[in-house]
């Protein structure tokens, strides 16, 4: 198929960016979206131009490196999928495709389509851990049975890949889905109880400091999350947060 690409190009964080048009032809419908960009980049390099920079690594939908706002949607038109798992069969011959970086104040652009998501890391440093030493001198793994329902919900929350689509999808650029997934995972497990109150307070405060917006319950985050993280996690985090503040 032949496509018209409109891609955000920006030399570095300080430079001004703009949309640049590229025509591309002979794209197979079996290609992944990133393989289509590989084809474009090969052509650009052969012409002596700079290739389009974008984040990617595992290309199997789990590392969370890839991002891209494709035709206005994080990770493109196919639900429940990351850009690296989006295939060109979801597009038609002659389509125009607008490709931009995820847009949020807390995710500054590094170059072209690459953004800086270190704000996510800093929120995690604030409390996304259980303070247990890695000595292995803990109790036997089966000493504390965990209700299967809670264990499964904790797993579902923990399957967040940290890509930032929730922030990109939100009109307020809120990171509530991301933060609440981590808070929920630990709140649902007995191991997470000791630091439960401190964790939610510290992580929420760091989230605010990073410049993420507030949550207004529109649910765009859940709709665009490639891993189907549920907004019930946000409700749980709100409950945790209020509970924690009442006690302190």
């Amino acid at each position, binding site marked *: 198929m032949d496509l018209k690409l409109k891609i955000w190009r920006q*030399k*570095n964080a300080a430079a001004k960016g703009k949309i640049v048009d590229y025509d591309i032809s002979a794209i*197979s419908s*079996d290609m*992944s979206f990133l*393989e289509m960009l*590989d084809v474009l*980049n*090969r052509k650009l*390099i*052969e012409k*002596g131009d700079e*290739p389009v*920079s974008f*984040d*990617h*690594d*595992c*290309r*199997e939908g*789990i*590392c969370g*490196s890839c991002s891209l706002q494709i035709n206005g949607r994080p990770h493109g038109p*196919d639900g429940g*999928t990351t850009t690296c*798992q989006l*295939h060109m*069969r979801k597009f038609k011959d002659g389509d125009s495709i607008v490709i931009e970086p995820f847009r949020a104040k807390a995710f500054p652009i590094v*170059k072209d389509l*690459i953004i800086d*998501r*270190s704000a*996510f*890391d800093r929120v*995690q*440093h604030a409390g*996304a*851990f259980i*303070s*247990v030493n*890695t000595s*292995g001198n*803990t*109790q036997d*793994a*089966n000493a504390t*049975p*965990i209700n*299967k329902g809670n*264990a*499964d919900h*904790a*797993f579902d929350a*923990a*399957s967040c*890949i*940290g890509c930032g689509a929730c922030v990109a999808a939100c009109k307020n650029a809120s990171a509530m889905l991301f933060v609440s997934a981590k808070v929920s995972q630990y709140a649902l*497990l007995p*191991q*997470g109880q000791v630091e439960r109150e401190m964790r939610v307070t510290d992580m929420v405060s760091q989230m605010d400091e990073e410049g993420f917006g507030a949550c207004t319950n529109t649910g765009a985050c859940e709709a665009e999350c490639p891993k189907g993280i549920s907004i019930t996690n946000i409700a749980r985090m709100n409950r945790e947060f209020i509970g924690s503040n009442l006690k302190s």
Partner: protein
Amino acid sequence: MKIGANFPAKTPEGPIEDKWTSYKNKIDLVNPANKRLIDIIVVGTGLAGGSAAASLAELGYNIKAFCFQDSPRRAHSIAAQGGINASKNYMGDGDSDYRLFYDTVKGGDYRAREENVYRLAEVSGNIIDQCVAQGVPFARDYGGLLDNRSFGGVLVSRTFYAKGQTGQQLLLGAYSAMNRQIARGKIKMYNRHEMMDLVIVDGKARGIIAKNLITGELERHSAHAVVIASGGYGNVFYLSTNAMGSNVSAAWKIHRKGAWFANPCFTQIHPTCIPVSGDHQSKLTLMSESLRNDGRIWVPAKEEDVKAIRSGALKPTAIAEADRDYFLERRYPAFGNLVPRDVASRAAKERCDAGFGVNATGEAVYLDFAAAVIRYGKEKALVTHQDANNEVLVLKLGREIIATKYGNLFQMYEKIVDENPYETPMMIYPAVHYTMGGVWVDYDLMTTIPGCYAIGEANFSEHGANRLGASALMQGLADGYFVLPYTIGNYLAKDIRTGTIPVDTPEFAAAEKGVREQLERFINNKGSKPVDYFHKKLGKIMWNKVGMSRNGKDLKEAVEEIQNIRDEFYKEVKVPGDLEGFNEELAKAGRVADFLELGELFAKDALNREESCGGHFREEHQTAEGEAKRNKAFQYVAAWEHNGAPKDANLHKEMLDYKYIEVKERSYK
């Protein structure tokens, strides 16, 4: 020359069950106040590097951790699917440390060091305790206890899992332990930094030159020890299940500086991956081995059915049971679909080479869940008091169970192939997945460079010539959480009075100059072909001549062809952009330059090894039934010492002695 002459493996004395304990009792310790005076660099933040960085920081050392990704959480360990082994014997099916040790040595076709493997089995149970304490949400049963499943090459259920995302959950556990130490200031994290070279001062590893991938600046970082945890080199094949950025460079740089590289030809070709769809393909996707618990592998038994399938005239579901060849069950009745990976891969290749491949290119076999769906569906109908003879209901219930076990894998398959694996069998074919070879290390996990360690997939490790499923995660975490934190102290105890290592020295300047010159050479090269052109070309040679089965003639050709591509690469490669700023093509050029050297050593090692064992299959050395035929004369670790070009590398042999396991013909029949 034998390794013993210069570099003893330093395995402790005594009975094998006591070695690790008595070793720990005798090593030198570093007092807590002195740990604050010691810096350690960790390169790579996967399961091995992440767990090591966190554990060493907890002990009190100052850690500088480096990863090329934008966050430590993105290391490729995250993509591991199936599970992690541990000899907990929670299932009561007769498991023990000894059995895990035995299975691992046998699975590795008797090419691993006994002492290291026993230690691995011994600490495996601790890993599970540790991860649960960290909040890793493993799969549980309705009683709230941990669930286990089976993996290939063993007769017990010892694999702990978190759906098809075990690697993700374990890595995020290690990442959380790192986060705790980053918050305390004990780990200084350098994201988007690539190690460009090792710096050696007075014969000891004392630092690295790193490149900030955002600004392009070269940085000097010093430390009292350097830990390489940069993963495997499967991307030498261009197409593999590794991430796009996975590379050999950190390991190769230390090899060039004196660390021996062991058994490069021991590479794992995983049997269940999604087949290649075309020339545009950038990577391959694994379908977890756990699928072989419930999936049955087959091809049509009749050639006319193969033709009809390829032309689209026949659907696989329309082929009668009697006309299917479940070739693993036929050849290996005892282990069936759960034979080890090397055996399963070769058996699939054998059927495809014989003309029974089921896709357009003839390079695919079926992995079929129909029988499991019905089995699970009937069981569920019975326990929920519904009609177990209602086929529609049974199908529905069975598919639900399969979805809870493997849902994310089925979804991934459907996205990539555009077929629904609940309704039609998956198509799979072997692909490069893991490298057992790597940097040679002694019992302390130290390389032949004092103060330079290699852990996880980066070292040549405990898997011998073939790794069993769910053992990579086990080894990565064992090295990082429980082994290195002890062994490194034994070395650093002598460094408590050294003080901070300065970076304004001739050694750092010389290393930085070398790095800068290579980068300038790429940027100023007047070539016309992108880096990928050469990488793909290398990959084709590796796959065709150094892949699943090898012979002397092809290997000799491969060595020569790789040398030619390397020359062409330096003449013809085109790297756009400049030294400053983010430049992915420049980073790729450096990595491919190293793959072009490793590839040659890999072929040379395969040529040297005149036997078949594990993942290394030499066509000249097979039994009448087409199975791998070992040669006692090659019961050694081949450790290569850099000496200019790969063709001039010197071979050192670490002879392997089996005192606790009888070396036998590996049989899964």
